[in-house]
């Protein structure tokens, strides 16, 4: 967190109204998001109880297990969820376009699926259910339908994507909302989707304070799951499960199951509505300029993973080997750095945060030499000099590189820093993005009197040395990893 975020929270309490943390929304929002609201049985490792899933707010599909304690029924549940999820994935994968018109053009899906869950625990549900189903075999004594295994592979992929800072594949609603608005409560309380939305969209005619205390009453606003409310468990769920286990005739079983379905729907429906409200609120926030480009990259990732799965790709291993871990770590870091920089370049409130921590400064151009040239290797090169007067504290050193977000990250070198009576003067030598002509192309050099911002945050990607091939994994990383073919025992893994 930063001083700006903390101040926004204090302002939210003071005014009893949510405060914006960013001017733009930095998350892509699909026009057809897939929402999953899962519920699990308490005390077990991912025993699915029910899920509400779909892309139509008015018509959620309801999946309720017939007996949460039976292994076969759990796989049956996974199969039903697979039918709901694999269809939109396949549909998205079928609609493709060429990335360019040249001979080297690749294919990219027109739109990729985007899954929403209420909270981070929902992401964990997706990950664990993926782990549970992807290592199953589709033939042999413990055979499961092909779609169950495929669901596992896809859920694992979505859960892995959710770890990236710039993800648009699997989104926890509470996190997406908290990235845009500060509410007047702690992060812990913001983890309750109902309490968070109470700040942003209180029920008609209710003030925020009453809406929040209403949201904290599990009788009125059931928890967003996957864990159910303990009181609900004791009063309703436990008796229903007992009746389910003791029902002797199919008719009796059906009657109990109907009761169970009704009560679980009642528990999930409010959360379902809240997730859609969150999506709607976020969609109304203007999208940041660099969002489409990032979504394009996400579509590429989806396209290539779909090809991998379609070509009969193996399920992900139980644990990453050293090579894959190193790859993933590097990708996590690189995508996080790029995302941070892109947000800063796009959003005045994010750059303000960097200004407060001394990683950026804003000011006015008080002097400019746009035609200055300095001797280069063969001939002289254009290196305009710009003098900026600023009230921000300058923590930069002479010789340090800074970038201009307004000019697509134009690089400048700090020539001198001087403290004056009313602030600081920074002299900068511009390095690039001025065209190849004798003089700078119009607009590429800041004009006298212009308000400018420079930051040390950069999205330029530092190219690293290529990774060693798998068979050349060094001994420091355990040497070449053995093949991660799923073991036969995995298919027989207990799920009870």
């Amino acid at each position, binding site marked *: 967190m930063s*001083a700006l975020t*903390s*101040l926004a929270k204090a302002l939210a*309490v003071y005014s009893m109204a949510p405060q914006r943390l960013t001017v733009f929304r930095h998350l892509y929002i699909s026009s057809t998001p897939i929402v999953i609201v899962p519920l699990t049985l308490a*005390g077990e490792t991912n025993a699915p109880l029910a899920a509400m899933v779909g892309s139509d707010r008015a018509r959620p599909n309801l999946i309720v297990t017939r007996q949460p304690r039976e292994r076969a029924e759990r796989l049956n549940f996974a199969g039903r969820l697979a039918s709901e999820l694999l269809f939109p994935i396949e549909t998205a994968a079928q609609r493709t376009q060429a990335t360019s018109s040249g001979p080297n053009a690749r294919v990219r899906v027109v739109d990729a699926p985007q899954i929403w869950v209420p909270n981070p625990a929902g992401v964990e549900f997706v990950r664990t259910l993926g782990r549970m189903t992807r290592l199953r075999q589709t033939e042999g004594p413990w055979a499961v339908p092909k779609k169950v295994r495929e669901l596992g592979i896809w859920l694992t992929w979505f859960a892995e994507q959710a770890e990236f800072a710039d993800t648009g594949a699997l989104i926890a609603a509470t996190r997406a909302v908290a990235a845009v608005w500060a509410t007047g409560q702690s992060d812990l309380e913001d983890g309750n989707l109902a309490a968070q939305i109470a700040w942003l969209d209180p029920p008609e005619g209710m003030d925020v304070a009453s809406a929040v205390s209403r949201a904290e009453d599990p009788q009125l606003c059931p928890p967003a799951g996957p864990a159910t409310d303990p009181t609900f468990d004791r009063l309703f769920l*436990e008796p229903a499960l007992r009746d389910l286990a003791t029902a002797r005739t199919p008719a009796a079983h059906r009657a109990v199951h109907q009761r169970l379905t009704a009560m679980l729907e009642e528990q999930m429906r409010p959360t379902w509505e809240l997730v859609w409200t969150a999506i709607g609120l976020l969609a109304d926030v203007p999208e940041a300029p660099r969002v489409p480009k990032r979504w394009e990259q996400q579509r590429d990732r989806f396209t290539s993973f779909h090809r991998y799965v379609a070509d009969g790709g193996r399920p992900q291993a139980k644990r990453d080997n050293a090579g894959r871990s190193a790859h993933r770590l590097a990708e996590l870091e690189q995508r996080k750095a790029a995302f941070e920089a892109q947000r800063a370049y796009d959003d005045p*409130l994010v750059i303000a945060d960097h200004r407060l921590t001394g990683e950026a400064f804003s000011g006015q151009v008080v002097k400019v030499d746009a035609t200055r040239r300095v001797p280069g290797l063969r001939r002289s090169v254009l290196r305009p000099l710009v003098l900026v007067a600023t009230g921000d504290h300058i923590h930069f050193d002479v010789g340090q590189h800074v970038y201009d977000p307004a000019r697509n990250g134009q690089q400048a070198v700090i020539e001198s820093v001087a403290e004056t009576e009313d602030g600081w003067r920074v002299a900068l030598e511009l390095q690039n993005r001025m065209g190849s002509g004798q003089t700078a192309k119009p607009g590429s050099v800041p004009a006298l009197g212009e308000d400018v911002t420079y930051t040390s945050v950069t999205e330029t990607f530092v190219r690293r040395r290529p990774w060693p091939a798998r068979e050349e994994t060094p001994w420091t990383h355990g040497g070449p990893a053995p093949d991660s073919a799923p073991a036969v025992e995995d298919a027989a893994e*207990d*799920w009870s």
Partner: protein
Amino acid sequence: MSSIAIARGRGFEAKVKADGCAELLRLLREHIRLPVAEVHYHDLNPTDTDDRITSRLRRSQRALQAAVESDEPTGTLFDHPILQLTVNGVQVRIEPDLIAFKLGNQFFVVEIKSFAILDGAADSGKVAAAAQQSAVYVLAMREMLQTAGLDPDMVSDHVVLVCPKDFSNQPVAELLDVRKQLATLKRQLNRMESVESILRLLPPDLTFDLRLDDAGQPTRDPQELATAIFQVTARYSPECLGACELGGVCRSEARGTVAVLGRVVREDLGGVDSIKEAVELATGLREPDAGQRQAAELLRRAYDMREAALGAAR
């Protein structure tokens, strides 16, 4: 906690302890690689509902000490002993849901938990809580041995954690190093303010007594009890909500202070306690006092930048 989760946890524990801890022995042999040939099983559970805790404590102490003094090579399992720990000069009895296991001249604390170890990894928060809890038992057992004039280091600083494996109900055991938790615990116990010195700060007639009647029903006026509670200033932080049933009470008492937003926010706002004050310093409605100048300047700058950025977007 959910009744369903509690039932499942009990079921799992019963499974591990069934038939004189047969399953647990297998785990100790195969997972922890202890050379256990055969063991005695010593049941220290209450014999009936009238079994008093003091007599159970005496029984537990006798059994554990007798085990130390015998030099029989076989292992011994003590199911559900009562332990005692000195906290601030007050002897506190603890009834841990544990098994103490003696092999050779080593005691191990065995902790059975119902959260799963999935692919060799478990929820880090739950493991940390289990480690902390076990450290208390290790310390209590050591204290007991010491009081009896025996070597406290016989109690191992590694505890055995038994959990369900992956998605199944099958147990798996891991050794958990609790040396760090033990050190923290000892430091906390040493630094603890004595109850007497805290009591001196409170009104002499303050009491939280519920005034139970003979049937065990509270007879105290709730309003009066609430007044008594509010005489003690809340030291609230958002984490309280998950750990204490009075969390909501303290939160409402702390309303308007920066504490309700969490520790990080408090630090970011430069230690200004009241939200109103922080906002007024930021907006310039209030002049900072000598100690607030630096915090106020940061808040002013942050507020101005915020307004400028939002204003440009409007």
